[in-house]
């Protein structure tokens, strides 16, 4: 009997011990899985840089392709370092006033999980900065642009981000919904782009003497399509990773994201058809991106049919928005303002209108409108001041001779397609004969 008692007590001890070990292991596993998901999602967001680079280069003329790529490449580099140094602290530091964070600047050591968050958020900051580059293509001083990227990632983006995504932010306290950043990332980029093109002015000959816009077709529509698809792929990380944990709702978020992208392209082309415009590839690609931008705010809080509506309207907004920009005689090379600014604002509003379980709640819609307006006022005017100062101190715009030669030569001293330059007045062999500007 004693033997049996002894055996049972040993068994009970082992059971308790193994349960304890299992509990500890499962805790570790959840953090590991969450970390894995967030860093992989961050890496997917990083891939969006390649999408932006291809899309924007494809929509620009061949003589500016290198410059567009270099702007995308270097704003990522400059933006990442500035966000680590300043931006992250402003955005996620202790926010006592509701307006900006006050610590976590230039972090040296932190818990493992915080590295993952910093990595993921850095990719978001770089995305906001790079949205601006496409709008300014083909006529912007390279270093002036990079200074703008510093301002974006160090101050403009993180300050607004702290209002929404910092638990102490004033918009966060109001219940403003922007799950993955229709406004925080995309509209912020779009409004900054709007300010920049106001300061910069249009490219030479973009508008004729009668004021009508002229088409300046991009040099590689294949790049545009591949860029669009890469962005779409990266968006699964952008929206899916914003859960910041490997939850079971990721499938729902990704399905919303995907359907909205598809509906965006359809909405844009339908709008082109209604307006008796040809079904341009650029309109289709921009429409899908506008759909993705629009669903970003409500991708976790919307049912599938409403994601489709949100995406489709986003596509329509991208077409109409671009027409408005042209009417205002502004030159946005890639349609960044309409795709990211206008569609982002619409998507943020839609997140309030179609909030699952609380649809058409006027209070929520009002909060969404306040958040949208606050983003426009803060970002547009601060960016306007920043770019105006850059224009006065360094000069935002290159000279007309730079525009004639193309920025690949004048800003970087190289040609994007040295072997295929037969249609250009400038060839790689003659670069050394050109006077340095």
């Amino acid at each position: 009997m004693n033997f049996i008692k002894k055996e049972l007590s040993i068994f009970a001890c082992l059971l308790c011990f193994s349960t304890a070990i299992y509990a500890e292991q499962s805790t570790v596993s959840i953090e590991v899985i969450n970390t894995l998901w967030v860093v992989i999602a961050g890496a997917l967001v990083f891939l969006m840089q390649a999408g932006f680079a291809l899309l924007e280069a494809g929509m620009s003329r061949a003589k500016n392709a290198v410059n567009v790529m270099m702007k995308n490449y270097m704003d990522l580099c400059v933006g990442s370092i500035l966000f680590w140094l300043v931006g992250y602290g402003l955005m996620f530091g202790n926010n006592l006033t509701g307006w900006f964070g006050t610590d976590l600047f230039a972090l040296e050591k932190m818990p493992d999980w915080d590295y993952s968050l910093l990595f993921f958020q850095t990719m978001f900051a770089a995305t906001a900065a790079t949205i601006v580059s496409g709008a300014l293509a083909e006529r912007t001083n390279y270093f002036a642009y990079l200074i703008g990227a510093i301002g974006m990632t160090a101050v403009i983006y993180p300050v607004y981000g702290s209002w929404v995504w910092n638990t102490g932010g004033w918009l966060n306290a109001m219940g403003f919904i922007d799950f993955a950043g229709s406004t925080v990332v995309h509209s912020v980029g779009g409004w900054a782009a709007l300010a920049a093109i106001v300061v910069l002015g249009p490219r030479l000959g973009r508008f004729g003497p009668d004021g009508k816009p002229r088409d300046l077709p991009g040099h590689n529509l294949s790049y545009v399509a591949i860029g669009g698809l890469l962005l779409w792929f990266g968006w699964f990380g952008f929206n899916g990773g914003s859960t910041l944990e490997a939850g079971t709702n990721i499938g729902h978020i990704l399905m919303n994201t995907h359907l909205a992208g598809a509906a965006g392209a359809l909405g844009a082309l339908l709008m082109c058809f209604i307006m008796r415009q040809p079904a341009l590839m650029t309109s289709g690609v921009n429409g899908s991106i506008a759909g993705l931008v629009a669903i970003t705010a409500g991708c976790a809080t919307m049912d599938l049919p409403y994601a489709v509506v949100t995406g489709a309207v986003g596509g329509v907004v991208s077409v109409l928005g671009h027409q408005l920009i042209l009417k205002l005689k502004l030159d946005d090379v890639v349609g960044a303002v309409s795709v990211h600014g206008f569609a982002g604002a619409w998507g943020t509003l839609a997140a309030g209108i179609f909030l699952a379980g609380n649809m058409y709640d006027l209070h929520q819609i009002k909060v969404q409108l306040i958040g949208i307006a606050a983003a426009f006022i803060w970002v547009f005017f601060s960016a306007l001041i920043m770019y105006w100062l850059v224009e006065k101190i360094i000069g935002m715009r290159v000279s007309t001779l730079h525009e004639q030669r193309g920025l690949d030569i004048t800003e970087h001293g190289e040609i994007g397609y040295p072997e295929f330059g037969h249609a250009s007045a400038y060839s790689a062999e003659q670069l050394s004969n050109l006077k340095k500007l």
Partner: protein
Amino acid sequence: MSIHNQRRAIFTGMRPFLKDADLKIALEIWQEKYVDKPKTAYTQFIAESCGTKELKGKRSAILNSIFNALTLPEKELLPDPFNQQTNQFDIAFIQQENHIEANLVFVEFMQTLLSHLGGENESKVRGYLVEHSEGKFNLNVQQMLALKMWLNNAKESFEISFSADDKRELINLAYIAMCQYIGPVKSDQVLSMSIKQTESFAKEKAVNVHAFL
């Protein structure tokens, strides 16, 4: 202002726009009918002396040019065209001694470039260049006049010495005008075609036409 200087001012103002024969006739009209008339009559003078289709579109520019010339200091006015000793209809005074190969290539390039535009666009671009060239180049009054005459098609040849920077500046000015009137895409094509067509001539003269860009 004396009649002598008024005539010089009218000559200076009209010189960039009119060919020698037309200019001579215009000055004779002024001498005969308008010499004692007030400035308000200059509009009528221009209407009478610039009756060709080409000049009709430039009447206001010519009138402005005359009014500008009337305000110039005496030393900046061209010599009196009716002075037999100076014989100012001989345009030798605007020619420079350092007539170098690069200028020939440059002129050939510009002519090719402008001829690609054809008709209305060519005259618009030429007009833009005349309007915007003032103060852009390192040229004296007479050289600037020669440039304007050439751009206005009032003179076929263009013999002044133009520095490399000025050449580049003029081509860029033409590019800006082309972007405005025919659009940037066609402008790049015209620039490229003109370079290619001038290359063989430039090689003959041992000049690198790409350096003008």
